[in-house]
């Protein structure tokens, strides 16, 4: 850290600054205390306080993960409903086959393939990477670009941020589409065999309405898996953000790993763990909202 050929005085000063001159156990408890105070030290590769870096990169990852989750659940539910309705037909089998395929796909590879196809072959249909067009005039309020462009009514920025986020979000979310589609399919098929569904059909409710009601019941299971899969999505941001140069925590994590930036890596590991636990908690709370039986 002091560089080669540093004088003893400098080495000692740095050792004192990072508490390296104290016994190992004392060092551990000192750094633990600092972490509880939100001080994760200084990043070795950005030379900024790690907590500041985390604050800067957090919104991009959240926006990406939320859009990816929305895409994944939306597509998954749609496929699942159609698979249940056309059970055993070619569509159903194709959807099942694809879910095996998506699940086995390395996200970094899918990202590259999409870049090659959509950005290079198809006349630069999509931007290769980034979060928003850097030449655009744009005022960020919350740090979430899509939300900000809505609030400020900056439609050019909205278009640009949507165009930038769609490929990374698709890459991140597609691996779990199969999971949601099979879940929807199974719970819908179970619900459609219930007596009340037969009654609803018998009294002449329209088929679309019947399926919608059955789907609403299946949604509680989907919410559970959504909460659990959010952690998985977060892990995926490392590869996806690296491929698409998306300036979030994932890219920051990859760069920290390459530069052996221990303060940043320790903070990131903790942060990802905490986010994951928070989402598990949110999932538990959401049961109360979604399922009236638990509330009683």
């Amino acid at each position, binding site marked *: 850290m002091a560089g080669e050929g540093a004088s003893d005085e400098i080495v000692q000063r740095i050792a004192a600054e990072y508490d390296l001159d104290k016994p190992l156990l004392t060092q551990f408890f000192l750094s633990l205390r600092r972490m509880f105070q939100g001080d994760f030290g200084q990043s070795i590769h950005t030379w900024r306080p790690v907590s500041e870096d985390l604050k800067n990169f957090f919104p991009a990852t959240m926006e990406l993960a939320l859009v990816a989750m929305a895409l994944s659940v939306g597509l998954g539910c749609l496929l699942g409903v159609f698979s249940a309705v056309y059970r055993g037909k070619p569509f159903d089998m194709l959807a099942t086959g694809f879910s095996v395929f998506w699940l086995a796909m390395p996200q*970094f590879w899918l990202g590259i*393939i999409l870049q090659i196809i959509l950005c290079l072959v198809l006349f630069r249909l999509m931007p290769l990477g980034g979060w928003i067009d850097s030449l655009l005039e744009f005022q960020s309020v919350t740090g979430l670009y899509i939300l900000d462009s809505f609030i400020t009514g900056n439609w050019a920025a909205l278009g640009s941020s949507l165009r930038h986020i769609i490929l990374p979000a698709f890459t991140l979310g597609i691996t779990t589409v199969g*999971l949601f589609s099979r879940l929807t399919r199974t719970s819908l098929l179970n619900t459609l065999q219930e007596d009340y569904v037969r009654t609803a059909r018998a009294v002449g409710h329209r088929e679309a309405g019947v399926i919608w009601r059955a789907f609403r019941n299946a949604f509680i299971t989907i919410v559970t*898996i959504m909460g659990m899969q959010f952690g998985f999505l977060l892990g995926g941001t490392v590869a996806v953000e690296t491929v698409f140069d998306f300036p979030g925590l994932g890219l920051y994590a990859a760069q920290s790993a*390459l530069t052996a930036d221990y303060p940043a890596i320790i903070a990131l590991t903790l942060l990802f763990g905490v986010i994951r636990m928070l989402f598990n908690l949110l999932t538990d709370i959401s049961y109360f909202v979604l399922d009236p039986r638990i509330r009683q």
Partner: protein
Amino acid sequence: MQTFQLLVRNRLGMVGAVLLVLILLVGVLAPWIAPYPEDGYRTVHLERMLRPPSVKHWLGTDDMGRDLLSRIIFGARLSLMIGVVSIAFSATFGVLMGLIAGYVGGWIDEVIMRLADIFMSVPNVILGMAIAVALKPGLRNVIIAVALVFWPATSRIMRGQVLSIREKEYVESGRAIGASSWRIMRVHIVPNSITVILVHATIQIGWAILLSATLSFVGVGVQAPLPEWGLITSTGRKFMLIAWWYATFPGLAIVLTVIAFNLVGDALRDILDPRLRGGYGRGG
């Protein structure tokens, strides 16, 4: 034997098994079937850099002029080795931990299971990356990192197995005639849980290959010039604009291998342990 017959009848499982045998054969026979065996590792042919796929080089050449097909063939050895060895370690350690936690119980159970919870609360890629960086990137440390990421899941399954088997009547009678704890674990509990653990491990090998490829892609895994698939994809990405084949084919190799392990694992699970059916998540 009966298992084998059932596997033959399970169509998807059979597809996976054939694919898996092919990949294994490719890995084992690499020096003999690779069209340019010397390209597997450290060679440079400046005269044929970044050539597109052709009759001479089926999958094209890389930025060092090496035959991509040969490198992918040699990469099969590496990826399979990383997957199998790391899961062998993680399964052994996980079984041991689960066995102790389930059998001894009490505060030891609490400590082991909470430790597993801590490991599982961090997304796999982040945890793997943190461990790989702490140990310094390289082949051996990737294996250790992957093994450390996957042991908690095995230990939980093993603990569940122990808790259910130890209540069985034959274990009870064993204990009644004075069998030691060691004997009960060795003769009753481990042999009766081995099928479940094996099925779980088969699926995990696929995920381990995927994780190690991701670590190599990010740059904290296997280092050049080893022909690791994730690493080749990562280098190929730099030449994406002028050589589409470079990043495409090694990635395809990863997809096929992971699919093969998943299909075989799913089929084995359906045949050997129908109770486990329905788990599709890749796991955080």
